[in-house]
C-alpha cells in the first residue's frame, strides 16, 4: 500500500503526461506482483472491490473523533477521503502497514458486516498518505488525472509493448494482470486473446485539408457521412451478453442495455452510437450526452433517449476475422449482414461522388441531421489498428465562429503555471456579458504572452488563481456546434471551443449577441 499511496500522491501533483508515465513506469518496475497489478486495475477502473459508502466512512470517523471537530474539518478540507485521512488519530507505526494485495484480497473474502472493522484496522496501521489512498480506493473513482488509457499506455511504454495489443487483450484479463506483467518483463508469452467479446483496437482516421486532395484520386475512395455521436465497437453475442466498447477501450455495456439486448448475433461491428430523434434521424448530441457516463440507466431514460448504432464496418463474423480484407469486401459482408433488420442497428450509407468538387458541395450540406462532415475511406484498405496515414481521412465541416469577450482568465498548470491561459468568454445579453464557454488552446505561445500581459493589466478582481478582467479583449472562438445547456447562465454550451483569432482591433461592445449564438443551436 505504501508504494501505491506514494504513486497516487505523486500523480495528483504531476501536471505533465510524460511525468505521469515516468511515475507509473517506476511503480511497475519497483512494485511486486500482485500489488502492481491491483494498482493498475485501480487506475484503469477495473478493480472490483466492495466499495464503502461515504455515509459509512463518516460514521466510522465519528467513532474516533469529536463529530463537531470532524464537521469543521470536513467543511474546511472539502474532500471526505482527505479529511478522514488527515484527522484519523492512528499512530501508524506499530504494525507493518498492509499491502495493497492483502487489502484487496481480504475485502473480497469478507462479509459486508466485517468491512467497517477491517477499514478501521487498516486506517490505524497506515500513515496519512496511506489512509488517503485507501479511502480513495474504497470510495471508487480515484480522480487523480490518470485515464484507463494512460494507465495502459504506461504499461505498454514500460514493457516496450504495442498499446493496440494490450487493448485487444485487456478485457479478457483481470487484476492483478500477472500474465501481462510477465509478458511485459519478457518472462512469459503474450497472453492469448480470449472469447468472442474481446475488444479489438479501432482503426482511426487522419484529418485532411482541402489542398491535400489534389494528390489523391477520387476513384480510390468512397465517402460516408461523419456522424455526430460516439464511436463504438459492438461485439455481439447470441447469448445476449454482448459488449459495447468506447474509443478508449472502456466497456460501456452497462450504460446501453438497449443496444446489448439487440446485439444477439455473432459479429463484431464498428459504428457510431447515436440517440434516435424524429423518425430514424439522429437526435442532437446533447440528447446522447444524457445517456453517457451513467452507471445505471432507467427504463425512462431508455424510452426518452433510445440509443442505436449506425454501423459502417464489420470486423468479425461467425468467428471469421475480416480485418485483413479490403474495405470493399468488408462492406459487401456488412451489407449482407445488415440485410436482416435489427433493432437498435442501422446501416450508414455510402455517399456517391465523382469528383472532389462534388464532394466539397456534399460536405457543405452536411450540417444538421447529426452530421459533422465526411469520412473518406480507401476502397482497398484493410482494417488496421491505430491511426495509419493514408487509408482513412476525416473531413470535418468548417467550424462555426463567434466573437466573444474575455471575462475571466485562470492560470494554467505545469509549464503554463505562470500564465493566464484558460479563458472564460461571453457574449452580450442586453448590456450584460453572459459566459458561454471556456477555451485554453488555439493560440500561439507569442499570443499567449500577449493575452497574459493584457489580463494582468486589466484585472478587476482576483479569486485565487482566477482573474476577472474588464471587457476589452475580443476573441474569435471557433466551435463545432452550439447546444442548449442548463449548466451555463447563458443556457448555451459550445462543443470543442478554441480560440481561432485575437481580435485586438474589435471593440468589446461590437462582440456578438447571445441571440446570434442561440440561432446556431441545432435540433
Amino acid at each position, binding site marked *: 500500500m505504501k508504494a501505491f499511496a506514494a504513486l497516487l500522491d505523486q500523480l*495528483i501533483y504531476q501536471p505533465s503526461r510524460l511525468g505521469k508515465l515516468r511515475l507509473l513506469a517506476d511503480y511497475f518496475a519497483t512494485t511486486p506482483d500482485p500489488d502492481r497489478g491491483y494498482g493498475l486495475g485501480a487506475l484503469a477502473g477495473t478493480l472490483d472491490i466492495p466499495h464503502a459508502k461515504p455515509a459509512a466512512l463518516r460514521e466510522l470517523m465519528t467513532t474516533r473523533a469529536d463529530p463537531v471537530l470532524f464537521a*469543521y*474539518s470536513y467543511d474546511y478540507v472539502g474532500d471526505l477521503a*482527505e479529511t478522514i485521512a488527515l484527522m484519523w488519530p492512528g499512530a501508524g507505526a506499530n504494525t507493518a502497514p498492509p499491502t495493497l494485495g492483502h487489502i484487496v484480497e481480504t475485502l473480497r473474502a469478507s462479509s459486508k458486516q466485517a468491512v467497517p472493522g477491517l477499514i478501521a484496522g487498516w486506517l490505524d496501521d497506515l500513515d496519512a498518505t496511506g489512509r488517503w489512498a485507501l479511502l480513495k480506493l474504497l470510495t471508487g473513482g480515484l480522480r487523480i488525472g490518470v485515464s484507463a488509457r494512460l494507465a495502459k499506455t504506461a504499461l505498454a511504454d514500460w514493457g516496450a509493448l504495442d498499446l493496440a495489443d494490450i487493448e485487444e487483450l485487456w478485457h479478457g484479463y483481470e487484476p492483478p494482470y500477472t500474465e501481462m506483467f510477465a509478458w511485459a518483463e519478457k518472462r512469459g508469452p503474450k497472453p492469448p486473446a480470449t472469447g468472442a467479446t474481446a475488444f479489438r483496437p479501432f482503426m482511426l482516421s487522419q484529418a485532411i485539408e482541402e489542398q491535400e486532395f489534389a494528390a489523391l484520386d477520387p476513384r480510390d475512395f468512397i465517402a460516408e457521412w461523419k456522424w455526430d455521436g460516439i464511436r463504438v465497437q459492438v461485439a455481439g453475442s447470441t447469448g445476449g451478453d454482448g459488449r459495447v466498447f468506447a474509443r478508449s477501450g472502456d466497456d460501456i455495456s452497462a450504460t446501453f442495455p438497449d443496444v446489448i439486448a439487440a446485439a444477439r448475433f455473432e459479429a463484431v461491428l464498428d459504428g457510431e452510437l447515436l440517440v434516435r430523434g424524429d423518425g430514424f434521424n439522429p437526435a442532437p448530441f446533447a440528447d446522447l450526452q444524457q445517456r453517457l457516463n451513467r452507471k445505471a440507466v432507467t427504463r425512462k431514460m431508455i424510452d426518452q433517449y433510445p440509443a442505436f448504432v449506425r454501423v459502417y464496418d464489420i470486423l468479425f463474423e461467425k468467428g471469421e476475422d475480416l480485418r485483413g480484407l479490403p474495405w470493399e469486401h468488408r462492406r459487401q459482408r456488412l451489407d449482407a449482414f445488415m440485410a436482416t433488420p435489427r433493432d437498435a442497428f442501422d446501416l450508414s450509407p455510402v455517399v456517391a461522388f465523382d469528383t472532389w468538387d462534388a464532394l466539397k458541395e456534399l460536405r457543405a450540406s452536411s450540417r444538421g441531421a447529426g452530421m459533422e462532415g465526411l469520412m473518406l475511406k480507401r476502397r482497398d484498405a484493410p482494417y488496421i489498428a491505430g491511426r495509419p496515414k493514408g487509408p482513412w481521412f476525416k473531413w470535418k465541416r468548417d467550424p462555426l465562429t463567434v466573437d466573444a469577450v474575455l471575462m475571466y482568465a485562470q492560470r494554467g498548470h505545469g509549464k503554463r503555471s505562470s500564465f493566464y491561459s484558460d479563458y472564460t468568454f461571453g457574449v452580450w445579453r442586453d448590456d450584460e456579458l453572459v459566459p458561454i464557454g471556456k477555451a485554453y488552446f488555439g493560440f500561439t505561445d507569442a499570443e499567449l504572452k500577449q493575452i497574459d500581459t493584457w489580463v494582468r493589466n486589466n484585472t478587476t478582481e482576483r479569486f*485565487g*488563481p482566477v482573474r476577472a478582467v474588464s471587457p476589452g479583449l475580443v476573441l474569435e472562438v471557433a466551435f463545432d456546434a452550439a447546444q442548449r445547456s442548463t449548466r451555463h447562465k447563458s443556457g448555451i454550451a459550445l462543443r470543442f471551443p478554441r480560440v481561432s483569432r485575437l481580435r485586438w482591433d474589435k471593440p468589446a461592445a461590437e462582440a456578438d449577441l447571445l441571440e446570434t449564438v442561440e440561432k446556431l443551436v441545432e435540433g
Partner: protein
Amino acid sequence: MNPSAVVASWLKVTPAGLRAAPGNFWIDPVTPVDRAVITHGHGDHARGGHGSVLATDPTLAIMAERFGAQSGAQAARYGEPITVGDMRVTFVPAGHVLGSAQLVLEYNGLRAVVSGDYKRRRDPTCPPFEVTPCDVFITEATFALPVFCHPDDGGEIARLLHSMRVFPERTHLVGAYALGKAQRVIVLLREAGYSAPIYLHGALAGMCALYRHYGIDLGELRPVAGEPLKALAGQIVLCPPGALSDRWSRRMHEPVTAMASGWMRIRQRAKQRGVELPLVISDHADWNELLQTVREVKPGAVWITHGREEALAHALGVMGVPAQALSLVGYDDENDDDLTGTAPPS
C-alpha cells in the same frame, strides 16, 4: 470576579488591535498608534509609523529593514521584565521566527500571556518556545483543526532532496516566506548535508543577510539575478510564494515548483496553486501542539486571536478550559490571500 473578567477590564480589543490600558500601549497594532509593542516581524503584526516601538532587538532590525528606522525604538531582551506605565512586560521566546516573542503582561497580581504566533518544534534559527503559566493565555489558531498535524521537517527536506535526484536537470523552485521560513529551509538543507550554493530571489536577500548578522550560518547564497539560465539547472532557488506563479518564474528552466508551508497539508490547496512538490513545513503550532501548549501553560482561560477559532474553542471547552474568540481583524498569517500576493521585483 473571575481572573479572565478582570484581565478583560484592562486588556481590550480595539479597532487598532489589542490594547493594554495600564501600560497605554497596543499589541501588534494594525494602524499607527502612540505606543506599540510588537511580538514579531511578520508584516501583519509589525507595521511602520508608530510613535514608539517596544520589541526584541532582531524584531526592531527586521522592522528597520522593511520600513526604515522606527522612531522611539526600544529593544527588549528575552526574560528581562520592563515596566511600561503601571504594568510589567516580559518578552519570552515564541519559537516562531528570529526575534519572535510572547508578551507576559503582569498587572495587579494577574498575568496574561499574549503568545503572538508560535510553534513548538525545533527551529535552528530561533530560540524555542518557553512555557509561562498564567491566568489568561491568548493564543493564535492558524492551524487549529485536527487535520493539521505537521510531519517531521526532516522528512520534508528529504523529499526535496529526493526530487533533486529524480529530476537532476530541473531547477527546484521553492516558495518560502522571506522572513523565517526561507532561512529555516536553508538551515535544514545544510543540516541534511546539502552544501551547494542556494540561489535567492532578490526579495529574500535582505532578510537572509539580517539572519546572518544575528549569527545564523546559511552557507553560500547567490542571487538569481544575473545568473545565466543554465547555471540554475539542477539547483535550488528560493523565492517568495507569490513569485512561483509570477512572470519572474518563467526564467527558470522546467522548474519543479515546490512550496514550504503548513497549508501544503491540504492537497487541493497545493494543487490549486500548481505546486508539484508540496513541503509541509510550518512556523505555527499544529493542532496537537496548540492543545499541548494549553495543557502546559495551564491558564484559567484562553482567548483566541486569529485562525480557526471555533474548532479550538470547542476542543478547549471539552477539555474544561474556558475559551473565547477575540475576533481580531487584520491578521492573516500564512493565509491564502498572502499566498497569492505578487512578489516585489527581484
